[in-house]
């Protein structure tokens, strides 16, 4: 496997009592920053929960969607909890846990732009974060006549939308909702859904024990309602049944 | 007796200071058409400053400069007309390094005199031929010896057809064996009746070629007259000392 990192992450975590997790800081409500610039959000709470279950201290490493994978594969973090979507290509490089959060991505834009399906996007400019699930899914469904602008990170995407550099954005429903809530100059309103693509925890290959442990913790959290609490806190809705 | 000629260049009571230092302390001088005048004097005596004042490179603080009947106002800004009458050749040649010899000569004809291309070229060729460098039209300054460069500089001034040519130590930056070729050109110009004002350290040349020698000392003309007379019977001790120093080697 094209992955570097010692296959003893779990041992190391147990020994050093520190779990290093890559989290987003530009993707509300999964991860954003407070006025002290410290990360907070769904992914951060999930990371804290997993660390607690492992009896370790959590060390949050803010990443962008561009550099989160190198952080993982070079062993600078143990887990990526960064609203990571799964697909076949990615599964060749890293492993995924079971899903820990729901995620519906769609196309959003201000009231005055009409778009009900992919074809309606033709001739329009859509912003998306490079390398995100939205990017990959959007790329599959739109034709050449759609201008897709890919930004480095969600900061760029969101700024581009808010400053009117793109007409529409493809992003998560909850992300759009979080932006909407902050009362921005341009309001992202749902146009249509692209895909249901829940979020997974990313791990390095060959980390069987760690993977099992994370899966177990997620299962337990789903059972005892603690994950549901996180969902209610950040998404204002309970976890969907099928997750 | 010939009628009283108006001098071509007339300086009256020229004063010039750099900051607190007065470098020219009232200089009077007249040069008639066709005259060849050499200025000598110690370093710092004001020779260059005087020469540069004549074509307006230095703005004088007092006095009057008249060239060819026209007055050069101390405060005047447009010096272009004056400078077309007064050519100047410098110690450091100051050829334009990015232009060939020919282009050096042609540039001012083109942009200042607005001559057409053919006329410009013809004038440049004849000026270069005059200094013996007709064959170096397309050479860049860096490809020429110092002596050749200085001759191009002379041609560049000549092509503008000035009434008077000012030369400031034009052989001082040259290797000794190249001095003669440049002096030869100047000698020829003098013979052809060009009005010349030269600053020079070449005493022998000054003696042979010049009509008049001007000895500057401390910002004033201390003495002037025919070269032979001045050399043989200096009337001031300063000149006597200066001659002694130059010949001591």
């Amino acid at each position, binding site marked *: 496997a094209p992955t570097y990192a010692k296959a003893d992450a779990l041992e190391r975590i147990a020994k050093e009592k520190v779990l290093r997790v890559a989290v987003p800081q530009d993707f509300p409500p999964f991860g954003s920053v407070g006025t002290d610039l410290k990360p907070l959000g769904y992914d951060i709470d999930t990371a804290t929960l997993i660390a607690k279950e492992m009896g370790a201290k959590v060390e949050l490493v803010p990443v962008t*969607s561009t550099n989160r994978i190198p952080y993982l594969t070079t062993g600078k973090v143990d887990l990526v909890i960064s609203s990571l979507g799964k697909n076949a*290509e990615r599964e060749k490089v890293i492993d995924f846990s079971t899903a820990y959060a729901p995620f519906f991505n769609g196309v959003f834009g201000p009231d005055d732009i009409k778009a009900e399906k992919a074809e309606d996007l033709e001739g329009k400019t859509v912003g998306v974060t490079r390398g995100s699930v939205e990017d990959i899914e959007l790329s599959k469904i739109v034709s050449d006549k759609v201008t897709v602008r890919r930004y480095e990170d969600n900061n760029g995407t969101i700024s*581009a939308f808010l400053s009117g550099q793109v007409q529409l954005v493809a992003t998560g429903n909850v992300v759009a909702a979080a932006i909407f809530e902050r009362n921005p100059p341009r309001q992202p309103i749902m146009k249509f859904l692209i895909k249901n693509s829940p979020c997974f925890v990313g791990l390095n290959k060959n980390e069987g024990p760690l993977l099992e442990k994370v899966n177990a913790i997620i299962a337990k959290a789903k059972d005892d309602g603690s994950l549901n609490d996180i969902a209610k806190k950040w998404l204002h809705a309970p976890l969907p049944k099928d997750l | 007796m010939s009628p009283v000629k108006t001098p071509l260049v007339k300086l009256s009571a020229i004063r010039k200071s750099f900051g607190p230092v007065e470098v020219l302390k009232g200089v009077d001088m007249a040069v008639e058409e066709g005259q060849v005048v050499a200025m000598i004097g110690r370093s710092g005596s004001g020779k260059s400053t005087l020469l540069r004042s004549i074509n307006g*490179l230095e703005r004088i603080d007092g006095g009057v400069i008249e060239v060819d009947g026209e007055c050069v106002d101390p405060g005047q800004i447009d010096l272009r007309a004056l400078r077309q009458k007064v050519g100047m050749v410098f110690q450091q040649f100051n050829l334009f390094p990015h232009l060939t010899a020919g282009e050096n000569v042609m540039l001012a004809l083109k942009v200042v005199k607005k001559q057409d291309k053919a006329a410009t070229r013809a004038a440049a060729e004849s000026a270069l031929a005059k200094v013996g460098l007709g064959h170096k039209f397309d050479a860049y300054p860096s490809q020429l010896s110092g002596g050749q460069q200085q001759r191009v500089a002379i041609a560049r001034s000549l092509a503008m057809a000035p009434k008077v040519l000012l030369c400031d130590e034009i052989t001082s930056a040259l290797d000794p064996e190249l001095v003669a070729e440049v002096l030869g050109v100047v000698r020829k110009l003098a013979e052809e009746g060009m009005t010349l004002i030269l600053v020079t350290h070449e005493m022998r040349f000054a003696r042979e070629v010049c009509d008049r020698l001007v000895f500057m000392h401390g910002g004033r003309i201390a003495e002037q007259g025919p070269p032979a007379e001045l050399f043989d019977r200096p009337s001031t001790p300063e000149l006597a000392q200066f001659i002694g120093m130059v010949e001591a080697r």
Partner: protein
Amino acid sequence: MAYSFDFSSLLDYTPVLVDGVATTVGLTAVSTVLGVALGVGGAAARTSTVKPLAVVVGAYVELIRNTPFLVQLFFIFFGLPSLGIRLAEWQAAVLAMVVNLGAYSTEIIRAGIEATPKGQIEAGASLGMTGPQIFRYVVLGPAMAKIWPALTSQIVIVMLGSSVCSQIAAEELSFAANFIQSRNFRPFEVYFLATALYLALAVALRWIFSLMGQRMFAKGVSRA
């Protein structure tokens, strides 16, 4: 070493890389031409005797030279729309690069102009040339020849700096690299390749400029 390099997976993305290189080259070419032109004008203004002009250009130069290119880019792309000025990403990228190079080349060319021996200017004046004529025919050529290497370095720096234009989705070489690595999750291969491409571009740029320099400033002006 546990990581096994696999450059073959980059093959599929050749068109993306080619586009990226082409965009980087295009951005650099356009902003070089405009930026140097701006620099010549700026240098003329800064050395001119018209005081207000010199002061305004001076302020522009200082402002640009003392803030990072990335911040200038963000300001133009994200900030200016608040004032109703909306530029496409390539327009913003070119504008930022031109404004940036313009400031630096103003300083560089000014230094060249000021290094012109006083005698050259005096010789021009003695021939009856006007100030602008002296600038145009006597000063500018040798000044450019003298600062050509410095200008070349600055243009290389601007070319390398264009890598941050990926942040506003201008699809140049870094964008291509980021795009590919976010698809195939093979950042090392991609970044090594992109770095090598940048190096090749920089070397090529220097080479082209030194050829141009040799042609334009052939014999006369050696660098001495």
